[in-house]
């Protein structure tokens, strides 16, 4: 098996990259200017984190003796099946309720994962995680706050937030389902055991949803999986077609 860090770093980088691209779709048409700015700033943090993770993935690829790819090659020149992001982050934006609920469910898992990665024995991973964690705790604070305000808001906002939660729930299990890459990383580089993040995630999410007067779906419900291994929904292809258009149509083009 190749160095597990390469796939693992692609997962971290692709989550940030794909979610950033999704949030960027809102730019200029957010429901209020404050929300427009918040989404674009969150997208900016995530694109910055994606660059750090993908650059490191490329360096590690180079260390294994394969031709090293830089952040741009990894972002723009891979096809959907080579992406390693969670299915959750490629979900379409839908209504603002779905965008916010997706953000909250992801932020909660992202925050817990980064907290664990700060203790990784790979210094480069730990350093990026420490930097990203500061930004993501702000993301989580904001998305949790909005889930509470809209969940415990009007009858209409409550209904939409509950529907978004029910719709997205089956995409959350993947965060806590380990495969050989996760296991190898935990054993060799002290990264969090995926399943160990589930209880704190359920506690954090459950507490927020309770405050928001939203009903938490069954944690034992059947869950989708496959994104981390490159088996994606049809939505990712459309997202990449837009994101990668320039480099595909004009290879090597630079600003």
């Amino acid at each position: 098996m190749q160095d597990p860090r390469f796939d693992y770093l692609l997962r971290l980088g692709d989550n940030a990259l794909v979610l950033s691209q999704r949030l960027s779709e809102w730019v200029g048409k957010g429901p209020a200017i404050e929300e427009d700015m918040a989404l674009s700033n969150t997208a900016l943090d995530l694109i910055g984190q994606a660059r750090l993770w993908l650059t490191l993935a490329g360096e590690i690829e180079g260390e294994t003796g394969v031709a090293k790819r830089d952040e741009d090659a990894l972002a723009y020149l891979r096809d959907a099946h080579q992406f390693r992001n969670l299915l959750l982050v490629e979900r379409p934006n839908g209504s603002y309720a779905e965008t916010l609920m997706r953000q909250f469910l992801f932020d909660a898992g992202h925050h817990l994962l980064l907290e664990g990665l700060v203790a990784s024995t790979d210094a480069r991973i730990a350093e990026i995680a420490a930097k990203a964690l500061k930004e993501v705790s702000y993301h989580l604070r904001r998305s949790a706050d909005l889930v509470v305000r809209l969940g415990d808001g009007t009858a209409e906002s409550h209904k939409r937030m509950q529907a978004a939660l029910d719709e997205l729930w089956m995409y959350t299990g993947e965060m806590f389902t380990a495969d050989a890459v996760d296991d190898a990383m935990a054993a060799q580089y002290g990264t969090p055991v995926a399943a160990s993040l589930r209880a704190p995630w359920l506690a954090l999410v459950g507490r927020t949803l309770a405050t928001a007067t939203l009903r938490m779906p069954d944690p034992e419900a059947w869950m989708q999986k496959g994104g981390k291994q490159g088996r994606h929904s049809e939505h990712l292809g459309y997202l990449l077609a837009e994101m990668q258009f320039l480099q595909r149509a004009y290879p090597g083009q630079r600003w």
Partner: protein
Amino acid sequence: MVSITRPATADLWSWLAAVEDPEIPVISIVDLGIVRDLRWDDATCVVTVTPTYSGCPATHVISQSIVDALHGHGVEDVRIETRIAPPWTTDWMSDAGKQALRDYGIAPPLQRAQTIAVADIGRGAPAAAPDIACPRCASTAVELVSQFGSTPCKALYRCKACREPFDHFKCH
């Protein structure tokens, strides 16, 4: 002509202290706390920079400004090194920098940056931090309008005394 005399380190720092942040041109990159180290590697002046936010679009401009400033003072060979650990924090901002922000109309970060306790997340709207004061009238009767402002490092507040909105440079 190739200069073989190295300028004094104090001079280098003073030259960099004149380089402004491109987004907030009243604070220098030294007062912002992002220049972490200056050293010589043979004839190359190595400047170590710690970026603020991962995605801050000013990072590239800042690096170029550093190179330009040093070139302007005759330092031919400059290399920028990026260091991300420990991560940048507003605790590194100088008092002069904070005062410059206030004079410009931005409430500076006064609290020590701290990690938000996960246990406190999801318990409703966060209260305004007690030491954010309106940069115009100094009232502490302020309320949060938006958790993000015109740049990633700022949030938008409103003063309930003088009714003016203002930016707050977030504790980070």
